[in-house]
Structure formats: C-alpha cells, structure tokens
C-alpha cells in the first residue's frame, strides 16, 4: 500500500462523494421529482494516466465530466485539482484554472462555431482567456496546434462543414490543447466516428499524452475501447460507481460489469457467445432504489441486495467493488 501522502502526490484530480441532483416537474399538476444523475462518486485520477469511465446511456457519465470541470455545480461532494478545492474558487480564479483543464466533446460539430474558420476556432480559447498575442505569435500558435493533431496548416482557412468527422474531432482536440492544459476530460470523443477513424483518434490521443505529459479522464460506452485505452476503469450504473478495475487485465467481478463484458461481441466468429438475458431494462433514475441499483436486473440478486446498498469496498490492489455477492 502506498502512504496517503504518496497517493495524494500521485493524483492530479481527487473526487470525493460527488453528487448531482436534478429535479423535474413541480408545476401545478405534477409533483416535483428529484433524481441523482451522479450519486456519491469517489475517484482519484492519477497523473499521467488514463482513467476510464464506462456505462450505458444516462448513467451519468457526461454529468460527471461536467462536474469534474465545474461546468456544473455539485449538490454534494468535492473535486480537487492539484490539491485545490474547485468549490472554493471565485469565478475569476476558476476561469484561470480552466486553462489547465479542458474538455473534448463527443460531437465535434457542437464545439465548433459553423461560421468560424478553423483558424478562428483555434484562437478563440485565447480570446476567452484574455491572452493577448501578436499576429505573428497567433500564426505560430495555430500552425503548431494544427500540426500537433496531424492536420495540414492549409486547413486553417476551411470552415467546419468542409471537414470530415475525424478532421473535426482533431480540431476539437487542438482547441482543447490550445492553452496547454495538463488535464483533458474526453467525453465519448469517438462515439460518432467510424472505427477506422476512431482508431486514428485514439492513436493520436495516445501520442499526445506521451508528448505533452497529459492526464485523461476518458468517457465511453464501449468497454473494449476503454479496456484498451485506459489504465484504470470505472464502471458506472445509474449514477453510481459499481466497480473500479485497477488495470486492463483485471477481471471484473461485479455482475453489471460482467453484463457489459458479455454484451461485447468479439470480432471473431470462433468466439460466439450465448448471452445471459437480463431481466428488464435500466430503471428510471427517478426510482431512487433503496438497495443495489442493479438488483432489478441482476441474476444473483438476493433480499439483502434489494434492501441494503452495497458500499464500494477495496478487494486489494485498488480493485474496488460495490456488490454483496461478487462473481468469482
């Protein structure tokens, strides 16, 4: 075991008990209902490593991403970046710190203004931050940024609609890198791309991480991609961390993680499988289930599971699991 101090040194971001509630209704006719999109998530993001978050639609991945960058305020819990509690910062201080932490979005279209040339899109982060550059400096900056993501500087005068999906995502990454951050949150950066382009982008992200010494929080719904790319993997379900796998080789033991693994068809017809059918589908996040969030669909659920929520416990070596009856 590392000492607490050593671990703190090793973690760029520490997330503790992070919770975000959303409410809906509360009009004349509808009762006000509350749900927790992210529910008491605790997680450390080690420096220079890729921490992955995997889960199905609506499990709270994007909400977690926005909370970590404080693009959204938490209902409870804390996020510290390099030892600084984000909630303690004034808006001005937060804006300054944003230079060091940036986001890459799934939809490369949404992040780039269609009316701007790529050059202007790449210079925008500097304007937002009030960084003054001479024309020569600006030219050098955009040239360097665009080459860094493997695009030709000739592309700088193009408009977003003239670029392919993969090229747009490269521009999205270049923009995120403009202010030389140390931490990138990547929210499904390849989900709308074809696999041949997805693999290019992952390859690019791998080399940028090495070159620039970046730390990533990588969000995806694709377990095999996450296991390939990430050093640690957090499996989320209905707002909660169900299991944290310490490495790509670690065997999942949570029943939901197994369901995800099971649902992943290998590109190999000699490895066909028979899926264990799960009962039902993901319950509504408004249901506020008392016990384990996965109990309604879990083949191993007991009365205890439906009554008491399992706490996230360490199985040793950083392998954490929230399950009363882990799979062997």
């Amino acid at each position: 075991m590392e000492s607490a101090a050593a671990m703190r040194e090793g973690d760029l971001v520490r997330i503790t008990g992070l919770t975000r509630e959303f409410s809906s209704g509360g009009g004349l006719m509808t009762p006000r209902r509350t749900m927790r999109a992210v529910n008491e998530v605790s997680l450390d993001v080690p420096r220079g490593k890729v921490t992955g978050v995997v889960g199905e639609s609506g499990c709270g991945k994007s909400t977690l991403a926005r909370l970590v960058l404080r693009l959204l305020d938490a209902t409870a819990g804390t996020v510290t970046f390099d030892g600084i509690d984000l909630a303690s910062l004034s808006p001005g201080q937060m804006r300054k710190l944003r230079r060091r932490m940036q986001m890459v979005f799934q939809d490369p279209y949404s992040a780039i203004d269609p009316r701007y040339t790529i050059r202007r899109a790449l210079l925008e982060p500097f304007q937002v931050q009030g960084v003054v550059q001479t024309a020569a400096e600006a030219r050098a900056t955009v040239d360097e940024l665009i080459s860094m993501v493997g695009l030709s500087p000739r592309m700088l005068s193009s408009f977003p609609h003239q670029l392919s999906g993969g090229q747009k995502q490269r521009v999205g990454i270049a923009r995120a890198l403009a202010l030389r951050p140390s931490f990138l949150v990547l929210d499904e950066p390849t989900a709308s791309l074809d696999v041949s382009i997805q693999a290019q982008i992952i390859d690019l992200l791998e080399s940028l991480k090495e070159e620039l010494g970046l730390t990533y929080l990588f969000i995806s719904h694709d377990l095999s991609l996450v296991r390939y790319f990430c050093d640690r993997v957090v499996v989320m379900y209905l707002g909660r961390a169900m299991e944290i796998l310490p490495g790509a080789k670690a065997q999942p033991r949570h029943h939901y993680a197994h369901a995800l693994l099971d649902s992943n068809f290998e590109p190999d017809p000699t490895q066909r499988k028979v899926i264990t059918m799960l009962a039902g589908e993901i319950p509504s996040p408004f249901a506020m289930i008392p016990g384990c969030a996965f109990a309604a669909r879990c083949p191993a659920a007991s009365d205890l599971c439906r009554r008491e929520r399992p706490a996230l416990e360490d199985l040793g070596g950083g392998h954490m699991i929230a399950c009363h009856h882990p799979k062997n």
Partner: protein
Amino acid sequence: MALLSVKDISVTIGKLNLLDGVAFDIGAGEILGLVGESGSGKSLTAMCVMGLLPRIGGRITEGSIIFDGREMIGLPEVELRHLRGKRIALISQNPMTSLDPIIRIGAQIDQVSTLHLGLSAEAAKARSLDLIAQLRIPEPEAIHGAYPHQLSGGMKQRIVIAMALAADPDLIVADEPTTALDVTIQAQIIQIMVELVRDRGLALMLITHDMGVVAQACDRVVVLYAGRVAETNTVEAIFAEPHHPYTRELIRCIPRLGQAPGSLKGIPGAVPSVVDYPAGCRFNSRCGAAEDLCRNTVPALERKTSGLAACHFSEV
C-alpha cells in the same frame, strides 16, 4: 437457387452514382451481414431490395434483383407493396419509422397478420401476444394495450421485430436494428432475433457497421466500401483470411481484449466522398499496397481461393 439475388446493381440519385455494381445472394435460412462504414451504401442497398428507392428519388440504372425467381426491378407498385408486407419485411434503425405513435402497439401488430395472413381479429391478437412473448417482453397483455411512447427504445425495437415476423415473411432486411440501443440491450436483441430467424428458417440481411455483431450473428458477409463491394465470403473466412486490404484493416481497427497498448492504429485518411471518388480502386488513397494500376483501373470482383474480392493485388 438463392432466395434473393442482387446482380451488379448501380444506383443514381440525381447526378450522383451512389452504388456501383453491388452484387450478392442470400439463400433461404441464411444470415447475410452487409457491413461498411457510414456512407458506404448499406441503407441504399436495403432500399433497393425493399423496392423503396423511388421514394427517395433514386433509380437503379443497371443490374437486376431477383427475388424467389422473379425480377423485382420494374414491378408495379401494387405488387411491390404486396411483396413488402407479406414476403419481405424491413426493420429500420429507428423503430418510430415503423410504428404509428397514436395507435396501440397490439393493434399495429394484429393488423399485419389480419392483412397478410387473413387471420380473424381474435386469432391475430393471439398470434401477436405469442410473438411479444417470444421476444421476451414481460407482460404481453399490458404491452399489447400500450402506446409506443410508453415503451423504452429497446422494447419498441422488439415490437418492430414482432411486426416484421407477424406476416411470416421469407426475408427480413434489418438496417442497423440495434445501433441506437444500449450495449446490453443490443446484445440481447441480436441474440433473440438470430434465434427466431434460425428457428423459422428465414433469410436475414443484417446491415451493421459493427464487426462484432457480424462475427456473432452472420453466416456470410458482404463488405461495402464507397458504394462498391470490396469482398464477400463466409464469416469464418472474412475474419480468418480476408482477401481485400480494406477488410483486413477494418478488422484491425477494433480493439480486442488483451490488445497491447499503443498497437491500435487507424486506417490513414478518410472514406472519400461521393463527389470525389478516385479513379480506379476507391480504396487506393488509403491502401498501403496501392500501385499505379490501382489508380487507373477498377478492380473487378473476382473469385479468390474462397469468396470474391475486388483487389488487383490480393495475394490469394
């Protein structure tokens, strides 16, 4: 003889040549995977087989489509409509293109078998309930009386599959039936669909961009690239010994369990767009083996040691 035989069809919409010599067969009881990246022509091929191309202003300029021994191209719309309802069914990516939001689920499934099998209202309902149960939807009675908006995406897609099965068709064309769904739901629906199709000895044309789904479900595979067939073979051969460089590269781009860090590389470049397809082989701008011949001459889809591939230099 094949149940469906698509012979060298070319398709244009306006001035654009979108499909060029697409050819494949599907036998009764066979699951054929049609794979390719976005824009490769998968949905257009489905539209051709369904006889729906005119609806989007498209035209088949060459080739023929033989279904159960009859030419489909040029059939009058009444006959096409009969074929579509009764013998060929479509499952599309978005279940709401097949469901009417203001009609109860049950009535929509019942209608298929009253119309095409001539069943009485009672018999049709019994059949619908049975189908709903076979798709492992709990509480079939309740679902029968529900409206589409009361169901999750995964449930709606299962209802669409039930509707497709209701008329007892010979061929089902499923265009990315699970792409919009969560992975656990996708896996289950693929499994159920494959079981039902196999039990009934139906032919299934399964369109997907997911090579994992292909490996899991299909007997034979057609790989499309930029509006042309790159390769077609048995599913085992496609994965074990792909003849076309594109197929090989496409498979290599999927991260596998236990794959070494840093070893995932994409295919350089991007799929060319319809307006500037290169001369010769359309993969030539991204292919490591390309030579001058590839830039001048279109490779024909030729027989290899097994299957067919369109490459000047595929070794075997």
